């Protein structure tokens, strides 16, 4: 509070002279590149808020003191300052920047500032860079483009969510940034699929059409984001939408149409040598012969196969091993004949089927052939124009996509209108409203769930299954009256899944804001802004009668789920900007914010239905189950910022913010946090004028950001379960309510060096950052024997330090020849957990099968993967049990990896030659482990390619020789029949090399007991984007008359996985995860294959 009063005092002090003699100045602004007039250029009298914007013809007009300085700025151009010196006409030509160094950048609260005056790192991405090669999800278009920003798309499902983290994890729970559109925060609400199932309904920021975006500023550090408070601790993605004033020369129309085709490009590597069933390998066949004293002639393989390994009868175990979903059956493609689910049959006297034996052959592409070519049609239309005092833009767009999984789709329609108006000399207003409809008839299920088709066809699938038969007959019944399928135990036919197990969504959303500016004095402007983001979403999930493996018992199942979310922000702030003498300039703002979020969800579930597949409440057997939840969060804030510049080369920035948050206990509502930063343009300060070094800047900043918690966390309540036999069930909250809860604090500092060479053609920006988050509001697990599973406390400290680098090079520059620009961004950071709470040794972030957990552990990097590993001797050799030749395991979970990458970065090359342009983006990540269930169960189920390598099914295998040969294997030390252990419980090796032959199905079946074998290094290099454009020559276009510009592009996204780590022998997309929170990191459970997208775009301007 005290600091705010000081700021106020300063402001009062500066009000010394409010009025001075002025003259009228006019002029035209042109581009130095081609001499064209430039509309939308900002012209400001330095040290005041008096300003104008050039009109359609590049003209401006304003009142200024005769000795004033005018500042001309425009995004993408070098800012110029010109002294008036009494002139009434000042014409200016602006130089286009090769790379943005000194231009204008949008900062917190939507305020444009000169980049040179900032003491922190902000990286911006232009609208063109993200809309040229579009993606359904805006987040994905940032991949590889911003240093220090890691993006992970959760799957190849249409409309899937993407996780974005800026400068690593700052929180144990969620490290999602805040999204702000034109100064107003908007929701990125998501309800992700978990590792155990659900449907990925995406994250809500995907409602924004990239075509409406003028630019995106990524505010990475604390200083940049501090004014936003709350969620800004994880950085801010600041989106500025297009408006008319900056582009209209007259009434303009742009039309852009694209069609892209998607197909899955990363598939697990399956074997094609053995089919469904059990005990079918030649090794087990020969062992059977030996045990029973038979010869091959007496008991041929064909007979063994049909009698002991696989024979289809009803897919429920009624035949031989035909209820199994593993591929440990007989060898394929050697002429065996076996009854199969798609074999012809006759009916016996009892009406039961008698199946013919048909050739037992492989279907190598059966999983891949399930997928279709997806299509996305993207059309956008915009019209904009400006008259004397007003300008407006209307944009309408549609995106219609069909997923690579059959019968999945997503459509998004968006209408956006922006208008602004200069009402009087002093008063202006601007309003923007966007309506979005985002709907889907069916989105695929994910995670370990029979609603996810990949659980069956990507994991527990017979390698002999003919997908075409499943496709042609999914809507018919088998001779037992059940839906046609290859198996009746665990999964439905994948075509049944996508047609009869549906997840639909319909979201209607409108967001926008209304702002009024009033110029109180030359140097003070009052801005009032109201922003609101509202959506209501209806989801309906239905499972048809006869769905397998998803708990459907009678008639079908449904869940209808309605939710709405409203986030309201009101801001009021005073901007001031004042020149003090010849050397000093002071500017800044004082403001207040009111925030109110209301969230509501209601759901109805029907577990059994009287009339099959009629999904209505009246049709539910028993009572439908209803659920409801309401929540409200309010916060009030005051904030201020001040920037003092000295001779335009030394800059001091400071901010302060105080929040009052309703979610904290009464005594802790209020908390204050400041920031301060300093920037020095040393090339100007020390007059280093050089042809080589054109620009140099050093900057440093320190900031704190406070954060509250979720609503209703402070008091113990009772939870309820669905009524049991009509009786309501209550239980005490499993979370021990907190004592003395207070706000979290993230403290960060960063230092940066920016240098540019050869007229800015080569430049770099390197930043060191260090974020320290402490007192996190954490729900830490406690021993359930206490009666509670967790307690809410302020605890923990996470530190995140690293370096990020941005490098730009204008390698070739030739107006009429070849131009080549290259941009590199790279980031490396260490994410350490310094402490948890008391002597707590682990905080569980997520868990998977068996003992596998992902944890924060004190003194370790964030995201340690823990699980059961192999028992090994001192030399690292695997120890086996001499009684059965099978692996022995560690008694307790051990550290198996870490989810955080070592480094990641992007490389973009852009070329242009006359009317041609081309660019490609390579995106890389090194390190970052994950646990792959596709690998793990791929081994257990015998479908993975590596389960047949080296003839292990023909000959059996010896651990240490045929598998795990890189580490070797010894037997355990056994004395008196007991395996010996050391004092820590570790098994002791005998040193004798293991030579016991075991069946492959036993070795791979043993993957179940440990997780070490399926930890994969997630390194990758991907060809992320390609765009090749051609602009039709103007003289040809002009002959068409009405068209001004025609551009055609060939575009592609996610084109190739150029590199993967050798541990990734299952060939999973290393970019994997669930949803957008920390809980989804480092886990892969039947990932839906990622899609490659290739297509065309045509842009027309009128």
């Amino acid at each position, binding site marked *: 509070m005290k600091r705010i009063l000081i700021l106020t005092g300063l402001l009062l002090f500066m009000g010394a002279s409010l009025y001075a003699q002025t003259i009228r100045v006019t002029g035209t602004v042109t581009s130095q590149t081609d001499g064209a007039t430039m509309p939308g250029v900002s012209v400001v009298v330095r040290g005041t808020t008096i300003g104008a914007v050039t009109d359609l013809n590049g003209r401006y007009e304003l009142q200024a003191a005769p000795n004033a300085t005018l500042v001309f700025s425009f995004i993408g151009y070098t800012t110029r300052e010109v002294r008036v010196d009494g002139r009434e006409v000042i014409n200016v030509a602006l130089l286009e920047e090769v790379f943005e160094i000194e231009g204008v950048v949008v900062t917190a609260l939507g305020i444009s500032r000169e980049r040179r005056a900032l003491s922190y790192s902000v990286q911006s991405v232009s609208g063109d860079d993200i809309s040229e090669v579009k993606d359904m999800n805006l987040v994905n278009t940032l991949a590889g483009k911003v240093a220090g920003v890691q993006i992970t798309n959760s799957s190849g499902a249409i409309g899937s969510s993407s996780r974005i983290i800026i400068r690593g994890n700052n929180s144990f729970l969620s490290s999602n940034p805040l999204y702000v559109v034109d100064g107003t925060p908007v929701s990125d609400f998501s309800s992700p699929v978990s590792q155990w199932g659900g449907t990925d309904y995406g994250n809500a920021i995907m409602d924004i059409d990239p075509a409406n975006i003028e630019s995106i500023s990524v505010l990475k550090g604390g200083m940049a984001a501090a004014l936003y408070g709350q969620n800004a601790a994880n950085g801010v993605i600041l989106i500025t939408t297009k408006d008319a004033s900056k582009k209209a020369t007259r009434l303009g129309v742009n039309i852009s149409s694209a069609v892209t085709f998607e197909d899955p490009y990363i598939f697990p590597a399956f074997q094609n040598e053995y089919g469904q069933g059990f005990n079918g390998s030649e090794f087990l066949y020969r062992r059977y012969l030996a045990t029973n004293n038979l010869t091959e002639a007496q008991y041929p393989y064909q007979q063994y196969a049909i009698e002991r390994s696989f024979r289809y009868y009803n897919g429920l175990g009624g035949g031989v091993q035909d209820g199994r979903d593993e591929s440990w059956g007989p060898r394929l493609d050697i002429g065996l004949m076996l009854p199969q689910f798609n074999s012809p049959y006759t009916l016996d006297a009892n009406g039961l089927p008698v199946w013919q034996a048909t050739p037992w052959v492989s279907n190598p592409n059966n999983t891949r052939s399930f997928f279709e070519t997806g299509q996305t049609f993207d059309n956008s239309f915009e019209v904009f124009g400006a008259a004397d005092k007003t300008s407006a833009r209307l944009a309408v767009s549609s995106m219609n996509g069909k997923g690579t999984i059959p019968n999945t789709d997503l459509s998004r329609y968006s209408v956006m209108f922006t208008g602004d108006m200069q009402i009087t000399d002093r008063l202006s207003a601007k309003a923007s409203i966007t309506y979005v409809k985002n709907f889907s008839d069916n989105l695929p299920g994910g995670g370990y769930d029979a609603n996810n088709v990949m659980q069956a066809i990507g994991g527990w699938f017979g390698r002999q299954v003919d997908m075409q038969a499943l496709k042609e007959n999914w809507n018919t019944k088998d001779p037992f009256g059940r839906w046609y399928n290859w198996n009746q135990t665990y999964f439905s036919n994948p075509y049944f899944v996508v047609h009869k197990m549906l997840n639909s969504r319909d979201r209607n959303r409108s967001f926008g804001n209304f702002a009024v500016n009033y110029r109180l004095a030359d140097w003070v402007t009052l801005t009032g802004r109201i922003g609101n983001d509202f959506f209501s979403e209806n989801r309906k999930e239905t499972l048809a009668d006869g769905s397998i493996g998803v708990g459907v018992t009678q008639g079908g199942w449904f869940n209808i789920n309605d939710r709405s979310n409203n986030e309201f922000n009101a801001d009021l702030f005073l901007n001031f900007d004042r020149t003090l003498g010849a050397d000093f300039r002071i500017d800044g703002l004082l403001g207040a914010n009111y925030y109110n979020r209301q969230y509501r969800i209601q759901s109805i579930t029907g577990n059994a239905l009287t009339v099959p597949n009629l999904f209505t409440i009246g049709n539910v057997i028993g009572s439908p189950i209803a659920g409801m939840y309401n929540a*409200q969060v309010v916060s009030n804030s005051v904030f201020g910022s001040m920037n003092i510049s000295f001779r335009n080369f030394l800059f001091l920035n400071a901010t302060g913010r105080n929040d009052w948050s309703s979610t904290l206990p009464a005594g802790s509502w209020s908390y204050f946090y400041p920031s301060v930063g300093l920037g020095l343009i040393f090339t100007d300060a020390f007059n280093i004028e050089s042809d080589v070094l054109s620009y140099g800047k050093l900057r440093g900043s320190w900031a704190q950001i406070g954060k509250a918690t979720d*609503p209703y966390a402070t008091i113990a309540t009772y939870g309820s*379960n669905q009524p049991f036999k009509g009786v309501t069930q209550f*239980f005490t909250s499993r979370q021990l309510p907190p004592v003395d809860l207070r706000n979290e604090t993230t403290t960060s500092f960063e230092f940066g060096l920016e240098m540019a060479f050869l007229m800015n053609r080569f430049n770099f920006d390197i930043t060191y950052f260090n974020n320290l988050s402490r007192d996190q509001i954490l729900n830490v697990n*406690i021993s359930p024997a206490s009666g509670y599973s967790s307690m809410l406390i302020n605890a923990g400290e996470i530190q995140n330090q690293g370096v990020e680098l941005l490098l730009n090079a204008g390698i070739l520059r030739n107006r009429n020849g070849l131009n080549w620009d290259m941009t590199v961004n790279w980031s490396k950071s260490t994410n350490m957990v310094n402490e948890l709470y008391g002597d707590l040794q682990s905080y569980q972030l997520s868990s998977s099968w068996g003992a596998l957990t992902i944890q924060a552990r004190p003194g370790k990097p964030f995201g340690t993967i823990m699980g059961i590993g192999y028992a090994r001797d001192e030399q690292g050799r695997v120890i086996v049990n001499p009684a059965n030749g099978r692996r022995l395991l560690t008694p307790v979970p051990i550290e198996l990896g870490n989810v955080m990458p070592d480094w990641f970065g992007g490389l973009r090359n852009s070329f242009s030659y006359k009317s041609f342009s081309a660019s490609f983006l390579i995106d890389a990540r090194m390190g970052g482990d994950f646990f792959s269930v596709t690998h793990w169960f791929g081994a257990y189920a015998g479908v993975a390619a590596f389960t047949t390598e080296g003839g292990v099914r023909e000959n059996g295998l010896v651990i240490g020789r045929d598998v795990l040969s890189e580490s070797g294997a010894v037997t355990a030390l056994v004395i008196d029949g007991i395996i010996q252990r050391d004092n820590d419980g570790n098994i002791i090796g005998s040193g004798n090399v293991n030579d016991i032959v075991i069946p492959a199905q036993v070795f791979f079946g043993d993957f179940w007991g440990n997780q070490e074998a399926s930890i994969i290094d997630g390194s990758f290099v991907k060809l992320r984007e390609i765009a090749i454009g051609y602009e039709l020559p103007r003289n040809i276009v002009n002959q068409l008359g009405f068209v001004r510009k025609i551009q055609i592009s060939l575009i592609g996204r996610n084109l190739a996985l150029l590199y993967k780590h050798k541990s990734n022998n299952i060939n999973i997309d290393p970019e994997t995860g669930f949803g957008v929170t920390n809980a989804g990191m480092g886990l892969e459970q039947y990932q839906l294959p990622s899609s490659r997208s290739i297509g065309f775009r045509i842009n027309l301007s009128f």
Partner: protein
Amino acid sequence: MKKFKQILILILGLIILPVSCTKDFEEINTDPNNPTDVPSINVIVNVIRLHTQAYYNAWGDMNEPSSWANHLGKIQYIDEAAYRFREGTVNGLWANTYLNLNDLGLIIEKESRTGGNPNIKAIAMTLRAYIFHMATDRWKDIPYSEAGRGHQGITTPAYDTQESIYLDLLAQLKAANELYTTAATYAIGSSDVLFGGNIIKWKRFNNSLRLRVAIRMSNVAPAIAKTNIEEILTNPATYPIITANADNVYLWWQATAPYKEPWNSDRTDAGRDDHGMCVTLIDILKDHDDPRLPVYAKPAAADGEYRGVVSGDLPENVGALNRISRIGAIFRDVPDGFTPILRAAEVHFIIAEAAFKNWNTGGITAQQAYEAGVAASLAEYGLSASYTAYIAQPDIAWNNQLNQIYHQKWISLFKNGNEAWAENRRTDYPLLEHAPYSPYFGQHNRPPFRYPYPVTEINLNKDNIEPKLVGIVDHMWGQKMWWDTRTGVN
């Protein structure tokens, strides 16, 4: 200067406005979704339902206790039956156990205050003893005296020895018996999903449970066991017990998810067909033409034969699934079926064992109790007509062998795997072998002695659990239960 004043007022307004607006914050942050007080009976129903689901479903019973007791065997995914346990299952069972115990502890606290209902308090005490007993028979030493005291600041509760827990359980059950009252003022109503508000049935359950606890420790602390059993059996008016099937503690489920009978839910909701009948049980039933065979088991689909699997057998030896008997229809195929928590037959076999030890049973002989137990078990399935022929068979007819009681008790405990496994560890009857598919094959000569301690406890209550881990081998061996007096087992 007028303008200047306006600016000043605006600035002051900006600052004062939010500060004065926190007055509704407490109301805004009051949870509209969840209550802060509820009727105790609704919490008790949640405990009964949740505990029964946890301990008697596929995870809590079929995969492990029933398989380790050789009632069932896994025929697919033969992991748990071969002792390859899932940490998540262990952690979940431990957590559910203690969260339920906490709910009961808070009810006892609440109902002890003025105006409380003694019946509700007694029910909570009975259930608390019942759950603690199941938990200690899984894990041996566990937090007891300091359990459920998180709200008093104890987040790392100390462990108590199984012996001290047993002694206190007997005291608690005795105390609970004194509290039950049939006074109308304290009627508990029809929300009682176990007995429909019948207090006498609760009392019978309470005292029969005390017999179960006492007989379990009868080999290691015979004097205390004797005192407790004799007190109950010689004062039937004060200590009513379950002697008729009508008083059996069965939890009946509802026909629809998510509260279908757990074994049925495993088949119909989860779609699993992972369990067959164990060869040990099938062969014992066949050997004596046991009329319960077609009730307990279905004939194999392939040939109509009754055929069991070796529990935890090597997958390659399991053979074709259609040649294996599955679980009988009344235990597996009825969505609104039952979970048997404590049956009359078990009580009769406890009395028979006490009589066999020459304890004062109030005049009942070992033979009488043994025959009553067999009769009750057959009657449970409507097989009373077969009783005379069955009991007349050699080996079945009473000839004063303790193993006859154990034999019948083991059979009668079908679908109560927790008790069957515990009794098998106490009696070593029938003699069971270590599963062939076990990763510890060659190391041990019996099924597990105990359940693995949860990893969560090692992470979250390290100092207290570490001394308890000493001597445990391969998670489930090395440490026998306090009451397990077997020798030569490992």
